[in-house]
Structures are given as C-alpha cells and as structure tokens.
C-alpha cells in the first residue's frame, strides 16, 4: 500500500463539543429497480466515552448509517448527502487516502460475523500486526508482535503469547470477536463502531463481549456506536438510543426515556414484542402487524403508518423529529400523537406494547 503523504492530518480531539457530529445524513443507492433511500436524514452527536445504540430491523438503515461514517458505502452507485464531522473535521469530503487515516486510528469498526471478517489463511496475530503496521510503517515487526499480544491480553484472551500465532479457525466465536475487538483497538481509536457484535454468539458469550465493550468504554473512554436489533443488548450497555425505521430516526432519547417513557408506537411495538424472562408471560405477545417496508417503495407520510393501529388523518404528512415533551428537549420522536394520547395508548395489558390492529 503506497501511502501518499498527507498535508492535512486528522487532528486529535480539540476538546469541548461532540466527538462526532452527524447532520442530515442521507444515503441513496441507485439500483435496477430504482433509487433506494437507505438513510433519509439522520442527525446525531456522539460524546466522548458514550455508548450510543442504534436500534432497528433489517432495512431500517442502521448499518448503512454506521458504514457511511467511515466511508464504506462510497461507490459509483451511491449518493451521500449531509455531513459527518469528527472533532469538527468533515469526513464525507475526504479523499480515500485521507479516510484511510481516520479508519482504525480514529474510528474502528467490528462486524457481526467474526469468522467472515477475518482472513482464514493468516494467523490472528499477523492480521493485528498488519493493521498496526499499515497505519504506522515505523513500528517494527517485533514491536508490533508484542503489541498484538498486549492487545489480545487486554480483551481477555488467555495465553495470548501462544494464541497470537493461532489461525482464526482455532478460535471459538467469542474468541474471534475478542480478537476483532483487539484489532479494532490496535491504533487506539476514540470511536468503536460495533455492528451487531454479538448476534452470532451464544448468550453466555454475548454477555462476556458486552462486559468487555463496557469495560473498554469505561477504562479507555472509548465512545461506542452499537448497532443492534436486540433491545435486551441495548438495555445492558447503552447510554443513549436512536430507534430507526425506514431510513429515518423515529425516536431518540436516553436509555431511561426509551425504555420507561417511549413515545413512538414503533418503539412500543418493539418493547412489547420482547419475551421477557423477568416478567410473567403474557397470554399473547403484542405483535407489530405487517412487515418492515421496502425502501424502494416507502409509504407516504409516516413510514410506520401502514402498521400502526393508532394511525389517523394527519399521519399522511411526514412528522418531524421533535421534542414533544416540554420538560425533555433531548427526547425526540416522529409521531403526530400528543403526549397524553401516547401515555394512554401505549399501555397494553398493563405493559408497554402496541395494541392489536382493529379488524
């Protein structure tokens, strides 16, 4: 890889202000069937040391949002609008070579399936060393090897000095995900993007990985964007939550806002359809009817309208993402119902849920 000398290195934290600021992000893809607007106006800020969860189902735009932050969705058929600022510096207009310096060093990303995101023919250690040396060619092989061992130790891999020379297939799923995290941490980034990091893992392993993410978040002040569909995972580690649906953020707030005072009917539906072990089981799960919309053919107005039992005339217009509770300007949602209506409607059989559609 021939690195062209960069005149504009990415400056480290300037202090104050958010670490990452996303404003009006829109990502569209031209396909044979027409344009798919995968992300349609997403704004959020990430503070240092914070865990932000982006929750949504497949096709909600959560992964595309995350990938776009580090330029992974750039391609001839994609169309990206809006702004992504890291410490005040715009990322969407950076060249590929400049972005390369952001990736890994400032923002690292780990993926759902740790088996397919590692190269099976290289040892785990070699892949970590490669990451270290690709970004800093001055680090010697021996030093990089030692660093790799330290990183594996830091993410809780026992026997790291031997394990460093093992191949990915010799690792279990949880170990692989730890190794992926180690690789992500190699260049001491300030942000970790974790895209469904535990979805492919067993629950006991999932708990360990979530503990690890939270430890790193606390001990290193690592800001984390956690992409997931699992509200249980969110409850375990997140500080703030964005709920996405049909390419838009439909609700955002603190963990407490989303779980104890949810405002959007889609959020009620998600919470209601959980099978919770800590509660008596309901006779029937309050379900959301229908299926997530196709991004090729989104319903007009509120995208959740066809699945929402509380739909009324006004829903034909797209609601803005607004604070509708006067006491809480940071808790925002996209729904035309008034706060009192919501409080009344979201109670189903004594818990939060979406009532059965009529008829």
């Amino acid at each position: 890889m021939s690195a062209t000398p960069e005149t504009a290195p990415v400056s480290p934290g300037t202090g104050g202000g958010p670490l990452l600021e996303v404003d009006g992000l829109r990502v569209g893809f031209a396909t044979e069937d027409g344009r798919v607007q995968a992300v349609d106006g997403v704004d959020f800020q990430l503070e240092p040391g914070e865990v932000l969860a982006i929750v949504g189902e497949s096709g909600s735009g959560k992964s595309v949002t995350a990938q776009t932050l580090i330029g992974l969705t750039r391609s001839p058929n994609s169309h990206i609008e809006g702004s992504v600022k890291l410490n005040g510096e715009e990322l969407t207009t950076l060249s590929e070579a400049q972005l390369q310096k952001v990736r890994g060093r400032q923002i690292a990303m780990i993926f759902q399936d740790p088996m397919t995101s590692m190269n099976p023919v290289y040892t785990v250690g070699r892949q970590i060393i490669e990451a270290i040396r690709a970004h800093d060619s001055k680090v010697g092989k021996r030093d990089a090897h030692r660093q790799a061992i330290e990183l594996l130790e830091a993410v809780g891999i026992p026997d790291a000095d031997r394990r460093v020379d093992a191949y990915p297939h010799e690792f279990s799923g949880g170990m692989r995900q730890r190794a992926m995290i180690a690789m992500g941490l190699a260049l001491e980034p300030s942000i970790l993007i974790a895209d469904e990091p535990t979805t492919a893992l067993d629950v006991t392993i999932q708990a360990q990985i979530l503990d690890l993410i939270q430890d790193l978040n606390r001990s290193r002040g690592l800001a984390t964007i956690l992409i997931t569909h699992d509200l249980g995972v969110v409850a375990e580690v997140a500080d703030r939550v964005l709920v996405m649906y049909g390419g838009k953020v439909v609700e955002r707030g603190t963990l407490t806002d989303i779980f104890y005072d949810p405002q959007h009917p889609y959020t009620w539906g998600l919470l209601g359809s959980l099978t919770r072990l800590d509660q008596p089981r309901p006779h029937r799960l309050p379900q959301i009817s229908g299926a997530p919309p196709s991004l090729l053919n989104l319903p007009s107005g509120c995208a959740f309208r066809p699945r929402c039992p509380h739909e009324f005339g006004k829903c034909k217009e797209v609601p803005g993402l607004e604070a509708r509770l006067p006491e809480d300007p940071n808790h925002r949602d996209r729904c035309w119902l008034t706060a009192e209506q919501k409080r009344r409607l979201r109670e189903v059989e004594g818990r939060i849920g979406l009532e059965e559609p009529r008829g």
Partner: protein
Amino acid sequence: MGSDVSGATSTEATTAPSGALLEVTDLVKHFPIKSGLLFDREVDQVRAVDGISFSVDKGETLGLVGESGSGKSTACRAVLQLLKPTSGSVKFEGQEIAGLGRRELRPLRREMQMIFQDPYASLNPRKRVGQIVGDQLKIQKVASGGELRKRVEGLLDRVGLSPEHYNRFPHEFSGGQRQRIGIARALALEPKLVICDEPVSALDVSIQAQIVNLLDDLQDELRLTYVFVAHDIGVVRHISDRIAVMNQGKIVETGPADQVCEHPRDAYTKKLLAAVPIADPRESAARRAERTAAG
C-alpha cells in the same frame, strides 16, 4: 456441569405419563471421526447427543434450549429419523420408530413434520409456493388436481398468506412470509407432531412475535404437539409448557417452563439464564453490579 448430572439426565424424564405422543429414551447419536491413510479408522467420536430422554404429551409444547453445539438440532433429526440414531428408543404413539426403514417410515412421516430455521435455505428457489406446500400431498396421494389446489390455498390463508401467492416463487417473499410458507408446508399433511428447529431466530424482532403467535394459534386450533427448539430462552419460555435444557449432548434439567426459568436447579441452567440480557435498564444494571461484585 453439575455433579448431579447422572441422576438428572434420565430419571425424571423417563417416568412419562402413558398419554405421551412422543417418548424418547436414552437416545444417542455419535458421529465418528475418521482418519487413516488407506483405510479409514475410527479414531474418536463426537458425542452430539449422549443419552437423552424426554416425553411430550399430546397438545403439549416441549421447549428444548441450549447453546450452539449442545446437540439440539441433532436430537431433533434423530427423533424424526432423519439421522439414524446410534442407539436408544423413539416411540411415537407407543410405536418404536428407531431403526425403521424408509418404507416403513413413510406413513409416519405424515404424522411428524419439521419447521426449519432458515427460511431462505429451506425452500426450493425453483419451485412455486403452491408446489412447495402441495408436493407432499401429491406424494402421499392425499389430494390432486383441483382438490390439491384448494387445500393449498386454504393452508396459505391459514398461515396468513394470500391464496394469490400460489404461483409465486420464494424469492418474492420476505423472511417472515417465507417462514409462513415453511409452516404451511409442515401443516399440509395434518401432522400430530411438529418439531420447530429455531423457527424464529433468523427473523426480525417484530416478525418473531407474529410467528410465535401464529404457532400458538395453530396449536390451539389443530391440537398440535410441538417440540420447540431455540437458543432464545425468552421465546422458548413463552411458547412452552415444559422446558428441557441441553448442554454437551445431555439434558441437564427438565421442568415446567416457569419453574425452570424462575427457579433453575442445574448450574448450567443458572449460568444460561444469568446471561440472557434483560430489556430493563434498571434491572440489568443491578444484575451487572452483582456480577462484578461476584468476581
């Protein structure tokens, strides 16, 4: 796991009431590991299912939980004789079916069906929905012609699809709809026992609830008996009357669903339950504090 495994594995489950639809006793499925230059020699075995016993009553749902590699899926396949068990007995309505030949099994296949995990992989992409659901009616000579079509359309309607979907291909459907096709196929022959192997784990959260509710409704309506296999204990507890917990090829605990989830006795079950995330930030914070305090 627990030191009491030997006792817990078989004793309590084998004392099944006589009304059992399915009775599995000491079922074993080992896979040989072979090696050798000229002649394959068996050098070791994978003990995928290592002597499990359980019974399922008519109209009941038995949940089978465990992590990947615990032997759940192998157990299902060995019960249905899709894999030949190494040893042990599987009785369906009192009749021993372990070791029966293909031909002898054929009439029994009508009574026992399976729903698979991945609705993308379990439907033949080149067949139309009508064929996928109706083929077995033809093979088993239950219906043909207009009668066949009418029955398939009825089934599609029953699982929440539209009869107009008859001539469509699987790729035209979403994951949840595909799983409905899989369910219609499983129900076509009006089976008594349906084994659901991770039927919702590949689906979106909002769709999972729909499928769980559909399976619940179908059970009430058609008096089906389910063996419901999943790694998600929340879902298993919701749908099951009783739960069996599997670990490393053995059943470590069996009991009524609420009892197993609220008062687990086995160490492994406890560990499994403690790891399930709770969708309640206050509770999960409290539990985390406990966990870190403990070590």
